Structures are given as C-alpha cells and as structure tokens.
C-alpha cells in the first residue's frame, strides 16, 4: 500500500466529489437557521453554532434547550447520544487516518461527518491513499452548512418546507446508493443486513442515536464471528 498522505490536490478532489451533495444540503442549513431564529436565538450565535458544532442532527436537538435555565447535563447526554456514531466512523477510517502524524490527523477528523465518510470509505478500500478526499468533502459540507444557516437566519421561512422539493430525502438516498454500491462485495452483505435489522430492532429499546451504534457494532461482529479462518 502506498503511504497515506493528505494533499491539496486530494482535498480539492474531495470538495468536487461532494459539492453536489453539499449544495442540496443548504436547505437544511436554512431550515436550522429559521428554526433557531424562531426560538429567539441570536443570529450571530446561531451562525457560530453551525461553524463550531457542524452537526445538523445535534444542533436541531439542542433547540429544545436554549432558554433562561440551560440543563447542561441533559444537553450533554442528548448530544453525546446523537454524536456517538462519530466514534464508529472514526474507528472505520482509522487504518488510513492514523498513518498521518497527529498534527494532521486531528484537523482531518474535525470535519468527519456521515456524508464525507460514506464517500471516502469505499474509495479508501479500493486503494485510495489521499485522506484529503475525506477532508475536502468535510470542508465543502461545512461551508454549505454555514451558508445555509446564515440564509435561514436572515431570510427566515421564505423557502418553505424542504419536503415539497424532495430535499428531505437527499441524505438517505445518497447513503442508500453508497450502500448499494458496496453490496457488490459479497462479504459486505451479511454485515449490512445485521446492521440494518439490529438498528431497527433497537429502536424499541435504545434512545435515538445509540441504535445506529448498536447496528454498526452488531454488523461489525458478524464478520469476526463467522469468518472461515
């Protein structure tokens, strides 16, 4: 395997690959900005939150907490549950990312999210060694998330409901397509099925967020338990 690097060229390539996805996620940023404005959050604070936190799911969940008395403990638990899948994503890219020196590793991980993970991971597994792909994808998603939030804070509800344009299914369709592409490798089929079934079954027992982690770990265990040595 070639040594793992992170280059400007690779980062630019990652940005180009995820630009179409990023553009379609702008309406979610708008929806978040509008929802935050509706709850009376300061415009600058809202935009800062998108720039600093960069997690749509976690930020929407925090909207119930901003008030005169902030329940820090519950806020921490809710955002931890929603972010717990990041641990799985980080572990899965570790074989590549961990070959970088720590000073380059952490900046790459800062922009780790579902969409750039879903895009880069199959590429890494087919021999890609430029982690810039992951970083670039994250950067373009981050930029569009902040842009969308700023629009939402300023223009409010002008855009209307994202569901009208089918924009609400962008991410799930993108993930389903990536998953379908991965099913060409036969050894990936069993972990995917177990992961899917476990996550759905866990909806009855686990709080949101942890169900994804349960599915991922169960799917991961399949190949370890049932692999012919």
């Amino acid at each position, binding site marked *: 395997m070639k040594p793992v690097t992170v280059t400007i060229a690779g980062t630019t390539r990652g940005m180009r690959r995820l630009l179409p996805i990023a553009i379609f996620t702008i309406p979610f940023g708008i929806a978040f900005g509008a929802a935050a404005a509706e709850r009376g959050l300061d415009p600058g604070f809202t935009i800062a939150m998108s720039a600093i936190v960069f997690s749509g799911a976690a930020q929407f969940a925090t909207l119930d907490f901003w008030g005169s008395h902030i329940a820090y403990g519950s806020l*921490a638990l809710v955002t931890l549950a929603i972010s717990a899948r990041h641990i799985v994503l980080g572990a899965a890219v570790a*074989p590549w990312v961990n070959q970088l020196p720590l000073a380059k590793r952490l900046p790459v991980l800062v922009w780790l999210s579902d969409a750039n993970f879903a895009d880069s991971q199959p590429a890494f597994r087919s021999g890609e060694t430029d982690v810039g792909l992951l970083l670039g994808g994250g950067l373009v998603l981050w930029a569009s998330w902040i842009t969308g939030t700023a629009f939402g804070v300023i223009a409010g509800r002008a855009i209307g409901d994202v569901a009208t344009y*089918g924009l609400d299914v*962008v991410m*799930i*369709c993108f993930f389903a397509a990536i998953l*379908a592409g991965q099913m060409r490798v036969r050894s990936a089929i069993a972990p995917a099925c177990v992961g*899917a079934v476990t996550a759905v079954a866990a909806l009855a027992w686990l709080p949101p967020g942890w169900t994804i982690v349960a599915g991922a770990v169960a799917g991961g265990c399949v190949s370890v338990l049932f692999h012919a040595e």
Partner: protein
Amino acid sequence: MPSDWSTWLALAVVAAMTYGTRFAGALLMARIETSPRIERFLESLSVAVIAALVASALAQAGGREALSVALAILIMAVTRSAIGAMVAGMAGAALWSYALP
C-alpha cells in the same frame, strides 16, 4: 434569549461532545494492535453503520421515503452514479408529494 456566558458554555458542551466523538474512534484504534480480525471488524463496521442509518431512517418514515430509496438503489445499480441516484430519489419524493398532497 440571553446571549451571555451560559449560552456559550452550553455551546462548548455541545462542541465537546461532537468533537470528542469525532476524535475518539481513531484515537482509540491507535492504541489497539491491529490484526486481520480487527481489520475485518472495521471493514464490516463501515458498511453496517451506513446500513443502520438507512434502515432506521426508513423504519421511522413512510412509503414516500421507501419509494425514493428504492429509486436511488435502482439508479445506482444501473448507472453506478451516487449523485444520479440521489437526484432520482429526490425526484421520486417530490413527485409523491405533488401527486398525494
């Protein structure tokens, strides 16, 4: 809503969770000796996490989302373009919303 220190402290709490988890997976794996077994685990983990995301979203949604995902998978199988698949899925969802208001 007061934009004072308590709000910024809460933001720091949220950021600590999102970045703590982003760093944790890779840092944890750096401390574990890799073996073919661990590599297989990580390989399956990366497929299973996406499968879990899609399945739990579908389980909490309806026919409209199921149709979109089916279209996306079909287009992916035919064209091998994830972007094309995404656009097809969106078109399906938009049509559904238009036809069944």
